[in-house]
């Protein structure tokens, strides 16, 4: 139910607490933090710059979040995605899903991160140790992960 696109780092514990405090019907909170790895696709990287499409990013994240709330009985959720230059070990993204039951919390959290990888307009420019840069290519495994969540609604044919 909350979306933030920001340059700044975030505090995972504080966000989980803020999301759950005062709501004792929450029984389980699943969170995912994505971090900049020092190794991507076998290439050593020291940093990356995340570019995004201001306006559309917030819109797409809000749509993905709304869909998670339609699909699972969530009490609260949060997506924070950073942009700008990040170094190895830095946090990139945070997804939190809170529900009375742990199944819903896990599934919604994974849905959100799988889905935003293919639907949120972000692009990563990696910097190698020698300063060379390259745009990260979209992974087929990410498309496959997102496709798992596709429903058949509206695609069924008559006859």
């Amino acid at each position: 139910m909350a979306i933030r696109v920001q340059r700044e780092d975030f505090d995972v514990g504080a966000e989980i607490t803020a999301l759950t405090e005062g709501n004792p019907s929450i029984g389980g909170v699943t969170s995912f933090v994505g971090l900049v790895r020092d190794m991507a696709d076998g290439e050593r990287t020291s940093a990356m710059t995340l570019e995004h499409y201001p306006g559309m990013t917030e819109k797409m994240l809000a749509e993905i979040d709304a869909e998670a709330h339609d699909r699972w009985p969530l009490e609260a959720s949060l997506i924070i995605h950073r942009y700008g230059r990040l170094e190895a070990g830095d946090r990139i993204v945070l997804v939190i899903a809170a529900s009375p039951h742990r199944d819903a919390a896990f599934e919604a959290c994974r849905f959100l991160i799988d889905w935003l990888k293919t639907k949120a307009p972000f692009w990563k420019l990696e910097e190698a140790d020698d300063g060379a840069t390259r745009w990260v290519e979209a992974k087929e495994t990410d498309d496959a992960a997102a496709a798992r969540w596709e429903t058949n609604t509206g695609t069924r044919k008559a006859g």
Partner: protein
Amino acid sequence: MKILYFAWLRQRTGIGEEDVSPPESVRDVASLVDWLKQRNPAFAEALADTSTLRVAVNQEFASFDTALNGTEEVALFPPMTGG
């Protein structure tokens, strides 16, 4: 009409954002891209491989046959790699 370019499309065209006034013959995304390409070689090259091109019209995902009326915000970009 406002056109936005992201990631390597921005780098290769050398432009992040521009305002254009395409001719009336530009009625959908496909004809817009054709028109943008014929303006100069950098655009022709950057937009050459349409299989890697993704499009949003008014900040919604769109396709090459999405109709345009000349007032939209159109964004062109490679497949996304966030998260």
